């Protein structure tokens, strides 16, 4: 995926929309902030997810972080390779490290999501901790 073509949630998940199928992942910035990933918990195929609500968790040595759905939908595919080996997420968050594919709920909006430029601006502002 080209990070510039994606949309982002303020909680660092990315979305790529192709027709009614949305691919979801987490950003490079988030992976770098988490560091030392150990495990990831992803939903099952058929699970319904709600924008802004947790659909899984990623755990690093330091902490557990929820993964928040950027859009409403139903899980149609789970990246089992990442579920079995979370190092794929650390190595390639915009490619082999994608997490789930959703069938987007009818009428679900991309409202509240940021384009690449807006997301870059946000992490530049948040990043100076």
């Amino acid at each position, binding site marked *: 995926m080209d990070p510039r073509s994606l949309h982002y949630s303020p909680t660092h998940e990315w979305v790529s929309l192709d027709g009614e199928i949305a691919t979801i992942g987490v950003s490079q910035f988030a992976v770098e902030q988490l560091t030392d990933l*150990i495990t990831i918990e992803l939903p099952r195929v058929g699970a319904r997810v709600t924008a802004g609500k947790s659909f899984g968790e990623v*755990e690093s*040595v*330091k902490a557990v972080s929820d993964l928040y759905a950027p859009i409403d939908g139903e899980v149609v595919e789970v990246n089992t390779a990442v579920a079995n080996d979370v190092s794929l997420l650390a190595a390639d968050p915009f490619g082999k490290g994608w997490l789930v594919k959703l069938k987007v709920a009818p009428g679900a909006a991309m409202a509240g999501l940021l384009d690449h430029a807006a997301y870059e601006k946000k992490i530049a502002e948040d990043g100076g*901790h």
Partner: protein
Amino acid sequence: MASESSLLRTPLHDWHQAHGGRLVEFAGWSMPVQYTSIVEEHRAVRQRAGLFDVSHMGRLTFDGPSVAEWIDHAATNSVASLTELKIQYSLLCNERGGVVDDILVYRQPFAFLVVCNASNRAAALERFEAARGRYEGNLVDRTRETAMIAIQGPRALEILAPLFDQPLDGVPYYHLTMGRLLGRVNAVISRTGYTGEDGFEAIIGAHSAVDVWQARLEQGTPHGVIPCGLGARDTLRLEAGMPLHGHEISPEIDPFEAGLGWAVKLDKPDFLGKAALVDRGRNPGRTRIGLVLEGKRIAREGAAVFVNGNQAGVVTSGTFSPTLEQALAMAYVPAGTPAEAAIEVDVRGRREPAKRVKLPFYKRTRKSARP
């Protein structure tokens, strides 16, 4: 959380900030939790060497005619057995026998030095004042005018020895020596640490901290030394089964429950908490155990522990062990829980099976026998 500007800073704070240290609040101090990765820093210490800024630890000096008796009255271990240049692990307890702090007592030629936890400096001072009575001596808090730098790992001796004007290889574990670093910086160097590896901790004047830190990095670069943060310090001490105050020990937990009864000398004259400790030593309520989780999910502090299906205890620390590549935890269960009892931990709503193991989880292979 306090704002960054109100936090205490060590003399190395600006160095950490300029070199990628991720600064977080810890016990009122702004400290680096990591520079690159906790796992990388952890492995450097196990395999080569790591450098730690531990200047946030409290440093109290005692001098005067009866400070040995004073410290003996305040703390649980026996100062009588602490000969010159030796260091002793000891505890400060409240009147209920709970642990207010765990400390190291250094016996120098004409003075004592106590190293206490950053979070407990005020509480430790209060305990020493409570024990002062008729003892003659001065207690001075030197924390802010000094710095403390640890080097830990199998290469620590090779890196530090060329920078110090006194021999270090003959200094036994839990002993100290005094001399000069870089030919000019007065230092108290102890063979101590909080990682389960060989290593040294140096106490120096605050104004020399950056020079000493940088000299060690330069000297250590061919040996693979890297700066390490509090994140790796925590995973290292956990593998080594070492208690952390506020987790495995607290004012509500007594030394016997924590497995630290060896540092309590009930046969010495009166000391703070003795009456309660005599009683609690006979009636232990719970016991500290080590757990290895079957899965990789971490059982973190506060997770409920189930013994044979019944909720009976709580996790006090948990992490993923970079050395063993397993999720480890320390927990309390009722005293007398059979070794073969089935243990599960509630990890965020899901019960995960765990195996009880003897502490420490990790023990280094020592090159030579030490006392």
